């Protein structure tokens, strides 16, 4: 049985995060070279930003599921909130001649904060309860938000903003007014500002935030609540505060993914396919298959499982079959005791530290 020394304990977790940063940067460089030399198909190039979006959302969800130990089935809803609030801002500011980079940064902040606000709002009542209430409430939240976005009309004209939740006719819009949000048609004409570079930067930012939080006093408190709520209370950990902190941050990061999504398309609509229940489950699949509590795993799973159906498109009928087989293979690789043992013996971390975790 081997063990690490105390001073290296901090380094161990730091190393874990550095491996992930390095992995992301390495992939970024490889992709840049491939794009530069023209050896990447346009299909794959179109996937680059979505890969970042799903990775970011999966990182956010992993904080909630893996570290807080609460199931959320509505992270697509937080993406939706982030996407619409940021796209709304961008659209509103579009003809004011504001600097584009500044506008995007503010939109990013607005989207992230709005998602965080909704996460906080949901968390206040629900996180006080024990059990699976969060899963139920977030599931409902995701669906409600999607439907609200489909009946929301906001128009800008010379009198200012008008908004309605029923139809466009009741807005009393002046003739030269423009739609900011046009009900089921969504937000039309947002600029394509999301690039792969921005996506990677945002992945790195989310990783930096979650890794630093998890390896701190607050992160230990969050994990203590997950592991044993009663014991955590008995040593003076304020349960609700740290649950709210983790869940709000988790929602905020998902919202950041939503901002990226909104600025990657010229038309932003809230459909079951992008912000529905299926998307939330998809994010959960990324987190569970990548390994709960492993942010690196979430990214890898998000990238593999998003790329796979596209890459296999040529095989038409067989692609969903292969997709299913890969899902099962990943599940086995991640959770089978033999596979875990093998990974512990050959893990990347050990190449740096030459030591393994204290396992009896």
């Amino acid at each position, binding site marked *: 049985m081997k063990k690490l020394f105390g001073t290296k304990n901090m380094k161990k977790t730091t190393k874990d995060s550095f491996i992930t940063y390095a992995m992301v940067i390495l992939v970024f460089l490889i992709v840049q070279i491939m794009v530069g030399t023209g050896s990447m198909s346009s299909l794959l190039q179109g996937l680059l930003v979505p890969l970042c979006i799903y990775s970011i959302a999966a990182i956010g969800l992993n904080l909630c599921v893996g570290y807080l130990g609460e199931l959320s089935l509505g992270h697509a809803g937080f993406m939706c909130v982030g996407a619409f609030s940021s796209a709304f801002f961008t659209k509103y500011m579009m003809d004011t001649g504001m600097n584009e980079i500044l506008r995007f940064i503010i939109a990013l902040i607005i989207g992230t904060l709005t998602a965080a606000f909704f996460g906080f709002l949901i968390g206040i009542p629900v996180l006080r309860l024990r059990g699976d209430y969060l899963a139920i409430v977030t599931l409902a939240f995701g669906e409600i938000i999607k439907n609200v976005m489909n009946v929301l009309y906001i128009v800008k004209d010379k009198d200012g903003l008008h908004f309605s939740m029923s139809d466009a006719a009741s807005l009393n819009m002046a003739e030269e007014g423009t739609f900011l949000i046009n009900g089921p048609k969504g937000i039309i004409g947002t600029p394509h500002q999301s690039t792969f570079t921005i996506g990677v930067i945002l992945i790195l930012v989310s990783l930096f*935030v979650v890794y630093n939080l998890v390896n701190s006093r607050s992160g230990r408190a969050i994990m203590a609540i997950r592991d044993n709520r009663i014991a955590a209370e008995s040593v003076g950990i304020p349960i609700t505060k740290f649950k709210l902190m983790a869940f709000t941050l988790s929602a905020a990061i998902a919202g950041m993914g939503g901002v990226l999504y909104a600025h990657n398309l010229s038309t932003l609509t809230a459909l079951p396919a992008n912000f529905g229940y299926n998307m939330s489950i998809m994010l959960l699949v990324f987190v569970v298959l990548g390994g709960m509590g492993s942010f690196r795993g979430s990214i890898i799973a998000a990238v593999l499982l998003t790329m796979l159906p596209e890459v296999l498109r040529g095989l038409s009928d067989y692609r969903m079959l292969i997709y299913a087989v890969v899902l099962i293979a990943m599940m086995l690789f991640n959770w089978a005791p033999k596979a875990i043992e093998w990974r512990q013996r050959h893990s990347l971390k050990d190449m740096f530290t030459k030591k393994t975790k*204290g396992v009896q």
Partner: protein
Amino acid sequence: MALLEVKNLGISFGGLRAVDDFQISIQKGQLYGLIGPNGAGKTTVFNMLTGVYKPDNGVIELDGKGITGQRTIDINKAGIARTFQNIRLFKNQSVLDNVKVGLHNNHPYSALTAVLRLPKYRRVEAEMNERARELLKVFGLEEKRDYLASNLPYGDQRKLEIARALATNPKLLLLDEPAAGMNPNETKELMETIRFVRDEFDMTVLLIEHDMKLVSGICEELTVLNFGQVLAKGKTGDVLNDPKVITAYLGE
């Protein structure tokens, strides 16, 4: 003045009067035992003292301050820390981190400080590591600080729970059956550890225990509970020879 003064404490679960008219008075620095047959209400008393249950009636005073019915975390801040009958460690965290969770309130820095990795983060973390290692050393766990808590042997898990409780810097330490499941050697070692903790940390200890060797070995005074009521109390030797107590344990 007594460190812990409990008067007329009682709680009912439905029609069952689990604890009735419980009183106890513990002086600073005492090693005090709470014993009684199974189901007598000992753990219920602990749960009321630590705010897990709200007592129906009665007064609990720690160091002259009323803490009756307060929340668990406030009672912990007021100075009561405990261990559990069925061990409750943070299983998926390292031994060192378990103790560091106990240090949470005494070594504060904000989440923002952590995320931005400000100098204060490094300073406070270094303090915490040092303090946690000192505590682990007392229990002979320093070498195992990077193990996962769930990978520790049973006896070490009990010790780690005590170390974690001590990390909150309490005035009064409640131990719920610390020797449960330990072999005689481990129990002997534990007795020495508890005495050492009392002397070294200037601690007052209230413990629930079934192991009479441990009770008679280290407890200075005892209170005996039976069917939720105080059956006897006083000096350990006197109480253990009380015919009422012997009857309660062994039957008529």
